[in-house]
């Protein structure tokens, strides 16, 4: 079950069969949509709620609460003299030419950033003991201010969290109903702004997520579902509801993570070592690079990039995430003509409400979906499984008014305008993919594009041509790819600790101690879900002395300074193309991840559809009517319930024995 901004996708897996559905997200109470979707798939599969053996859930609820600022009344208790870390941030503007640009508004306003005397240094030694009386003195103000949630973040708390824990003890005793997040637990990592930002974001969504999860459990019980229940995290792993309630911030990008996991599993099973995934929904498109079956991973994410999805315009959170680039290119992205008479698409989106003009739900602006409909690339009566009947006349009228008239004048018709809109959105996605690959020092050409989400299969073949990709792969149930991905996800938990160390002063005892600590913490979470001890991976986040960014390097255990240096050199050279000989290397943080498969989810091999003689078709075809080996010659549209696969002229699609549709250029 994946709650997205526009749609809630539910997929039921029974044996090798997957039954998908798509319902509109019920923004007011998302649990309603989840239950509705669940009912629908159960009915379609002819099953009862009690038959459900395991529920996997991803949600953008935390993200939405942050974007819409609907979270708890939150306070931050921090070190005296450093009250404004959260608001001073990196002291930069993310848009060079706009003097009216505003920096992201912090989740905790200044009046609720409360300071107490205490100070710890970079080595974790106490310079000024915590003034416990000053902490007690905060209690009346917190109570009077109806503060629901408190984040505690002290300088160098990652090196010594004792003061933060002491604050928790005092506040929890005095205010038992208050929710408390310690920065040293939510993100024990150096860099105060990002750590405090993460802790405050966690504190901000914690009460709300607790309430939502409790409500959902009640509704599921009422429906008759009695199965265990796991949550999808942004890092691509499953976690327990208890862990999710403690650190709900780790759930923010869970939907897109599911998609990337799906693509990774397909890549691994087909032996595709260089893959790019494209997940295009109603509001945005997300692109992820997958090498050797593993999606790119990082610890930096920004929630609510409010200014054209620009880097720096959001709230940074340091959590394990699958690294993706997200741009404002979705079905609902609005098309317009700018002052320079250029067609522009996005980043504004009509979303689900009012939605594209063709939804007939009050939306008037021309969107990508309107353009696709006008170009006859959608099945009007099948859209989102028939949830919405599309109005072609409304789409054309919007395109004429918003694009054709201002752009091409009276000679320009709806079809030309639609072509322009699709061409521009394709160009935007191609540019984002190239830039993302370039940022990570990787090549985009010759990869396999795995396309899912309602919009991607419509645009994938054109991206293949623009980016010089090898082929496009559209998995079964592509329209609900993220939810399908949950079914393929492992249970996993990543723990981080900052322990500064120069390789010239390498201290293996400290490394062992840090790893032991982290292992215990990860085991506690993973062990509560599965018996399997799991697979452990470790990384050091390293850089040349004094540089600004760290790169993640795998750590063997036991390890040595020489081994770390060698691993760093290899990773650095792969990323930046060269080394700086003779310069010392420093480690800022360490991470440890435990992954284990969920036995219930050990997915049976997908059924091989009965092989039949290859036959070539074109035009409009039903995906369900295509058997293994079927070939579809472009131009053609392959229609299914949640999406349409567009096969352009000059390309051909083939169905493999896993039910994937593979598009490549015709020789």
């Amino acid at each position, binding site marked *: 079950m994946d709650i997205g901004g526009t749609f809630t996708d539910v997929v039921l897996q029974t044996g090798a069969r997957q039954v998908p559905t798509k319902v509109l997200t019920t923004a007011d109470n998302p649990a309603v949509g989840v239950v509705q979707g669940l009912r629908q798939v159960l009915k379609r599969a002819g099953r009862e709620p009690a038959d459900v053996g395991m529920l996997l859930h991803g949600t953008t609820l935390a993200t939405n609460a942050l974007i819409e600022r609907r979270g708890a009344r939150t306070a931050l208790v921090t070190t005296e003299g450093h009250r404004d870390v959260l608001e001073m941030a990196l002291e930069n503007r993310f848009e060079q030419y706009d003097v009216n640009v505003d920096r992201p508004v912090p989740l905790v306003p200044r009046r609720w950033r409360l300071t107490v005397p205490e100070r710890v240094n*970079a080595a974790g030694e106490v310079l000024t003991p915590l003034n416990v009386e000053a902490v007690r003195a905060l209690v009346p103000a917190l109570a009077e201010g109806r503060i629901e949630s408190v984040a505690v973040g002290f300088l160098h708390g990652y090196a010594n969290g004792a003061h933060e824990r002491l604050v928790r003890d005092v506040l929890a005793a005095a205010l038992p109903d208050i929710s408390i997040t310690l920065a040293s637990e939510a993100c024990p990592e150096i860099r*105060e702004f990002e750590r405090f930002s993460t802790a405050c974001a966690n504190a901000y969504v914690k009460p709300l997520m607790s309430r939502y999860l409790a409500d959902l459990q009640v509704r599921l019980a009422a429906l008759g579902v009695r199965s265990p229940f796991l949550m999808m995290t942004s890092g691509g792993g499953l976690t327990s509801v208890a862990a999710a309630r403690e650190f709900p911030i780790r759930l923010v990008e869970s939907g897109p993570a599911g998609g990337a996991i799906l693509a990774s599993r397909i890549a691994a099973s087909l032996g595709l070592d260089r893959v790019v995934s494209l997940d295009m929904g109603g509001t945005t498109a997300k692109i992820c690079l997958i090498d050797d079956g593993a999606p790119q991973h990082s610890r930096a994410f920004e929630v609510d990039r409010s200014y054209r999805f620009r880097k720096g315009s959001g709230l940074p959170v340091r959590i394990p995430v699958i690294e993706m680039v997200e741009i404002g290119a979705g079905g609902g992205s609005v098309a317009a003509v700018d002052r320079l*008479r250029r067609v522009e698409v996005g980043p504004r989106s009509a979303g689900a409400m009012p939605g594209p003009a063709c939804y007939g739900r009050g939306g008037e602006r021309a969107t990508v979906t309107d353009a696709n409909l006008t170009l006859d690339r959608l099945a009007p009566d099948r859209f989102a499984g028939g949830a919405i009947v599309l109005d072609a006349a409304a789409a054309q009228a919007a395109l004429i008014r918003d694009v054709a008239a201002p752009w091409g004048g009276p000679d320009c018709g709806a079809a030309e305008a639609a072509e322009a809109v699709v*061409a521009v959105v394709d160009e935007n996605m191609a540019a984002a993919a190239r830039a993302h690959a370039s940022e990570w020092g990787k090549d985009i050409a010759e990869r396999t594009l795995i396309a899912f989400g309602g919009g991607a299969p419509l645009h994938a073949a054109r991206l293949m041509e623009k980016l010089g990709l090898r082929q496009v792969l559209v998995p079964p149930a592509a329209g609900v790819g993220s939810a399908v991905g949950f079914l393929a996800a492992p249970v996993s938990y990543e723990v981080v600790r900052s322990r500064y160390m120069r390789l010239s002063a390498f201290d293996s005892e400290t490394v062992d101690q840090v790893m032991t600590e982290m292992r215990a913490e990860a085991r506690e979470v993973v062990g509560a879900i599965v018996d399997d001890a799991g697979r452990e991976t470790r990384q050091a986040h390293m850089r040349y002395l004094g540089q600004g960014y760290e790169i993640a390097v795998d750590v063997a255990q036991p390890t040595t300074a020489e081994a770390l240096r060698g691993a760093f050199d290899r990773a650095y050279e792969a990323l930046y193309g060269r080394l700086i000989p003779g310069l010392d290397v420093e480690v800022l943080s360490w991470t440890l991840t435990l992954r284990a498969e969920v036995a219930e989810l050990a997915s049976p091999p997908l059924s091989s559809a009965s092989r039949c003689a290859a036959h070539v078709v074109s035009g409009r075809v039903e995906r369900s009517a295509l058997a293994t080996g079927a070939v579809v010659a472009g131009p053609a549209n392959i229609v299914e319930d949640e999406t349409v696969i567009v096969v352009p002229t000059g390309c051909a699609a083939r169905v493999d024995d896993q039910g994937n549709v593979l598009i490549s250029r015709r020789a």
Partner: protein
Amino acid sequence: MTDIREQLTWNLIWNRLLAIVEEQAQTLMRTAFSTVVREAGDLSAGVFDTRGAMLAQAVTGTPGHVNAMARSVGRFLAEFPLPALAPGDVLLTNDPWDATGHLNDFTVVTPVFDGARPVALFAATSHIADVGGLGFGPDGREVFEEGLRIPIMKLYERGALNKPLEDVIKANVRDPVVAQGDLHSLAACNRVGAERLLATLREFDLRDLDGVGRWIIDTSRRAMAEEINRLPDGTYRHDMVVDGYDEPVRIVCALTVAGEVIDIDFSGSSGLSPYGINVPPNYTEAYASFGVRCVVGNDVPNNAGSLAPVRVSAPTGCILGAEFPAAVSARHALGQMLPDVVLGCLDQALPDVVPAEGASCIWNPVLRSSQDVEGRLRSSRFVINPIFNGGTGARAGKDGLSTTAFPSGVRTTPTEVNEVTAPLIFWRREYRSGSGGAGKFRGGLGQVIEIAHAEGAPFVVSKMFDRIGHPARGRRGGAAGAGGRVYLKDGGELRGKGRDEVPEGATLVFETPGGGGVGNPAERAPEAKRRDAEEGLI
């Protein structure tokens, strides 16, 4: 219908060119060695047509390169006309007057050939940390003292590295590995741009960029001209005095709007300084032009068309029109002040659009370990160069931004990272209450930073700060922001410039300047006043 198709193709190619130069810049940022390039975006990247007219430029952290790099390519072509160049040639200079204003900025130009036919040029500029001489700073008296100067010449000829040139560069800088790495990353990012461009020509079946280039330039020029046309014709004058290095510097500006063009003239500004804070005309043009572009036509991408309608002049002999061989190493100190002056002129033509003056100059002290006269260290060795910002001026209808870089695009370093890399304790770093200039809209706040050595040892601070004696002024009745301060906590004011020793056990305090306010403070909305008081900002 054909022109609609062509219109769409050109539309896509313009987007593509903008994407290509962003990728070019991204490649440079990722592969550069210099910290300022990687973290502050002190770099530029652009694509030019075969006449040397810029078609697209990446949006990066530094306005100082905006026109400077665009002009620079013309100088390269004057020295090496395109017919004299061959595939595999790569050109280079760091001449402050031919490139971007000081020796630390290296510009590399690469012609792109489709077969044997030249189709475009790529240029990229980045800041190399050390170029020999006295080192980066205002201490030189002539450019000769500021480091090695390379006239426009070939770094590669037909694909072969000019080894003697590289050896000379490596022999003359303090960190040859870094310099060499940065030169190669400049050449590499142009190569990425060239590959992408050739693929684009093939994809759209184009022979060259001439047609689409003319369209981009014309469209942009028209869009800029439309915007300028909306401004009332006339000459608008404004001047500003700033602290300067050894004595205050007066910047005098006359901005003339005449139909579709803007002429900016800095006649009457102070004369040359004996120190390296002089500004070459190309750099003056860049920052002055950036000031205009912030409020006039900022939706039009930078290219030859959008830059052409704004013309800038600074007379020879004035500090903003410094000619060879003036010392120019720290030209950014005054350069960063120019947008405020230009905006002061524009305020008269565009009332209620332009922000008040801000701190503008970044405060980036060098903090290092102290040595006694025999050169013995008084504590463990360290050097850090953190960046602190003051407040920006209040905007039309909005308060200024507190502790935010403008016009520069740099980012700050976290306190925790500073404390890991140096034996210093930052006891305080937070908003400086009351430092924002009062007004209907308040100026942004500066910050207070208190720094002491962890073991109480003495340490050294080098400064190049401004807006201490000359705070950021308000507009339309708005008050000035608070001036900056540098002092020791137990007494003793320090200068904003030069080097000082912080004695044993002492705490060094910086108070960065606040931004100016806009409008009469009495008209400030009661809600905003209440919030200011509640939040402790005033």
